[in-house]
């Protein structure tokens, strides 16, 4: 399989379209006959990451790269950034607003779910400027 890369825009606070990039990628991976368990992990991580950008970040980009040995997701935004990454990674930590909570978000479980489901995860953030989350998923040989 040759390498394939696709990117989608994510708009901050656009809850109507939030999740569309993740669902589109999930369908693309299904068409490519990739292992359903792997697709599930990629879909969950992508969706949690996409929702984080919509809720907490600024406008951003959702990119997926599909190679023969791995799938890489990179979700970045022009956000306010994350001041304390270890704290943000803790189960239950959340700065979600009441509006987010009414929609079922704000459990503080998104980043921990991503960490659990990705084979590798890397977060980089410049407070006041941007955030980038990169996750890799290895294909079974």
């Amino acid at each position: 399989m040759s390498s394939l890369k696709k990117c989608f825009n994510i708009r901050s606070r656009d809850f109507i379209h939030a999740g569309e990039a993740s669902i589109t990628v999930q369908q693309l991976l299904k068409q490519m006959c990739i292992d359903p368990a792997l697709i599930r992990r990629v879909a969950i991580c992508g969706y949690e990451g996409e929702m984080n950008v919509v809720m907490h970040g600024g406008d951003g980009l959702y990119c997926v790269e599909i190679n023969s040995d791995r799938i890489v997701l990179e979700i970045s935004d022009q956000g306010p950034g994350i001041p304390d990454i270890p704290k943000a990674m803790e189960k239950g930590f959340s700065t979600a607003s009441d509006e987010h909570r009414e929609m079922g978000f704000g459990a503080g479980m998104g980043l921990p779910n991503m960490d659990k489901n990705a084979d590798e995860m890397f977060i980089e953030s410049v407070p006041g400027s941007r955030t980038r989350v990169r996750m890799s998923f290895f294909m079974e040989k």
Partner: protein
Amino acid sequence: MKLSMLVEILEALFLCGEDLSDIEIDKAGASDLMSDILAALSERSVLLTGLTTIQAVKTAVISGVTAIVFVRNKKPEPDVVALAEMHGIPLLSTPCSMFVSCGRLFDAGLTGLKGIR
């Protein structure tokens, strides 16, 4: 159990996906927190929730949930139903509360998401 059986047990009605009433369900999960659902739910499972937002359906699509039951007679907006229909996820609405819905389904033999009861 078949989805049609679950409909009977919960005195529920289909908002969409009635053609899928032969589908098999053996697990159930109840939550109003999207991250909980994403962490736990999967195939052959039904999601019981009080949340009728479009994100509830998107979360179900991502996690592979088979069907959604809205408790306490809640019904989502038409655009939410349309999205579920497009993704082949039956939506049901039951007059039962979350507690009573879970109790009845547990009684009928459904397990939790990890197969425990």
